């Protein structure tokens, strides 16, 4: 039994109907019965964009959870209808870059057979609900957040009142001590909490987002009982839907509304709306039995008694230094004794970050079936996770991952770079980001032991899909007079102590980026105290030493 939501008959019928509807829309477009202006919104509603070289299809992966069957379904799209690979994104989705319009009805029909689609991966609607990629298995977790993600997803899917919001709306949910879902940079974030009475509820934060106006989310209410959470976020959305700006694209996100009203006024409006909901509030209430029924869908697999696995693991670590290095970097603690969470790096230095070939997807699906209860997660860092691996299986898994080119031991290190597609693919980009990431990763991989944990994030334009504002070192691609340049920030962070980075100086040319980043890292290594990571040092010393390092670099 897989630990994820399974479609019911209604879901299946709906998706079949949607594919049939879309197939007819494509037929009419190719026959000239629909103009591009008429067709654009229809294709976007199914996740089909037009990029520089081809159509791009974005597939939603709800809360980043995949079964092996779904991953094989994605591999088949890559193999049969694309150029043999897909790109995992910073929103736990996947994109295919070389799609033909005339193939898309068949692709969506194929995806529907594995309960995937591209609905609400575009437009001014709710986007994929994202969460902790270690959900359900993290040792620091209060509860698995995914049942709540699924409840919110079902509430949000094609919600009639919120289908034409002022702008897109991104929700993230975290249920652990450490925020691994970058909740503070989302339009609305839910932190699952247990109050002093032992009741489950949520801290609700709103108004986070990056782009041209980066802002961290602010708390609207410290504790909303889980029974009321759908009603409360309905109130949050209702205030945004009423007052959010539709006259200016650049001021249309909820972060701008919260900033202009002020959090106190926004909170007052939400509380007023929430108090006035009356019967509707009751209709949206989450009864315990409904939550329990959803939680049953995400029940963990039957764990084996794996207490004896530890000795074999330690022996393998002692015997094989390369394996030991991989264990140190790519394995995370599991709540179940004798089990581990395995992070599969999609960042071998020199390869495009987040790309995964069809062959690799199939290999990972096979490995998931063999050692991880058939389940895979996608991280917002553009890596994959096997969540249920017995420690006794780690060595063989490492060998098999290595054979597929998937055993790079760099999770959380300088070469584990977040990077958007940039100007090599994206029609919105101002500059390339992938070649910058490749050059940096190739160079910094040699220094990773010295540097330790470091998050570098790169965006090819101000829309910030690469989350550059919250990178320990952030890089933003710009275009000026036909030339690419890169603005560098330091000190950002996307965890519970989220912070926006500070600009170190004027933008540098593409060929100067690696040397400049090298000098910023040198400055960090000189300044850091024992046990500090980059954000700790930055908070202690401020921006000035890094500005100086940047200035010297020029």
């Amino acid at each position, binding site marked *: 039994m897989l630990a994820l939501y399974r479609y019911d008959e209604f879901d299946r019928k709906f998706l079949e109907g949607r594919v049939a509807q879309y197939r007819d829309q494509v037929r009419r477009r190719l026959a000239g019965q629909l*103009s591009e202006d008429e067709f654009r919104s229809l294709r976007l509603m199914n996740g089909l964009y037009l990029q520089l070289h*081809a159509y791009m299809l974005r597939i939603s992966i709800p809360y980043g959870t995949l079964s092996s069957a779904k991953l094989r379904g994605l591999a088949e799209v890559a193999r049969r209808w694309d*150029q043999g690979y897909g790109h995992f994104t910073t929103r736990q989705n996947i994109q295919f870059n070389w799609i033909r319009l005339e193939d898309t009805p068949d692709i969506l029909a194929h995806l529907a057979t594995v309960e995937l689609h591209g609905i609400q991966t575009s437009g001014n609607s709710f986007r994929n609900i994202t969460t902790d990629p270690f959900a359900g298995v993290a040792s620091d977790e209060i509860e698995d957040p995914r049942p709540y993600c699924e409840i919110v997803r079902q509430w949000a899917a094609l919600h009639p009142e919120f289908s034409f919001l002022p702008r897109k709306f991104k929700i993230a949910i975290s249920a652990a001590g450490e925020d691994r879902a970058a909740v503070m940079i989302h339009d609305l974030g839910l932190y699952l909490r247990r109050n002093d009475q032992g009741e489950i509820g949520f801290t609700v934060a709103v108004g986070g987002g990056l782009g041209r106006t980066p802002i961290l989310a602010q708390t609207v209410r410290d504790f909303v009982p889980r029974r009321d959470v759908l009603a409360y976020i309905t109130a949050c959305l209702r205030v945004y839907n009423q007052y959010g700006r539709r006259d200016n694209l650049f001021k249309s996100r909820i972060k701008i509304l919260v900033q202009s009203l002020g959090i106190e006024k926004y909170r007052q409006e939400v509380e007023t709306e929430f108090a006035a909901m009356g019967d509707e509030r009751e209709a949206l209430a989450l009864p315990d039995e409904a939550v329990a029924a959803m939680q049953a869908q995400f029940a963990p697999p039957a764990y084996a008694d794996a207490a004896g696995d530890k000795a074999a693991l330690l022996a393998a670590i002692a015997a094989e230094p390369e394996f030991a290095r991989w264990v140190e970097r790519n394995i995370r603690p599991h709540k179940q004794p004798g089990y581990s969470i395995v992070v599969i790096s999609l960042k071998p230095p020199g390869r495009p970050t987040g*790309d*995964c070939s069809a062959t*690799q997807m199939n290999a990972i699906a096979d490995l998931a079936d063999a050692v991880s209860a058939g389940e895979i997660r996608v991280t917002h860092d553009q890596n994959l996770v096997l969540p249920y691996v017995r420690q006794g299986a780690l060595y063989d898994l490492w060998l098999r991952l290595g054979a597929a080119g998937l055993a790079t031991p760099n999770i959380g290190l300088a070469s584990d770079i977040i990077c958007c597609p940039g100007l*090599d693919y994206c029609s919105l980009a101002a500059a390339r980001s992938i070649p910058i990431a490749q050059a940096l990763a190739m160079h910094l991989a040699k220094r990773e032991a010295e540097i330790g944990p470091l998050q570098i994030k790169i965006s090819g334009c101000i829309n910030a899909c690469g989350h550059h504002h919250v990178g320990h070192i952030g890089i933003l691609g710009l275009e000026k007079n*036909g030339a690419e340049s890169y603005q560098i920030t330091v000190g950002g962070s996307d965890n519970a102590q989220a912070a926006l980075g500070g600009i170190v100086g004027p933008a540098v040319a593409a060929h100067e980026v690696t040397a400049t980043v090298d000098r910023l890292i040198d400055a960090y290594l000189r300044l850091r105290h024992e046990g500090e990571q980059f954000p700790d040092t930055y908070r202690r010393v401020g921006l000035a030493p890094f500005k100086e390092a940047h200035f010297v670099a020029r």
Partner: protein
Amino acid sequence: MLGHPVFKLVTGNRLRDGKVVYFAGGSTWTPTIAEARLVEDGDGAALLAEAQAGPPPHPAIAPTLIEATRDGNRVVPMTLRERIRACGPTISHYGG
């Protein structure tokens, strides 16, 4: 490219597969930029109008005028974006 004369040409993405195409005159669109029809700056608007003409479905989405120069037999777009559109991604990927 400094000092080379600048021409106009029309580009778009092919309707059925999204591939980058260039207007070659008449009703012909080509994936090869060297086969694009180049005109002087003042004739750009007329070229664009010709490229946009024809019954639906139009073979190319969003026909757009861009600038390019000639370098020997090569036609080289003025902007990096259009050079990438003409030549493909500057990086290798798993498929290529």
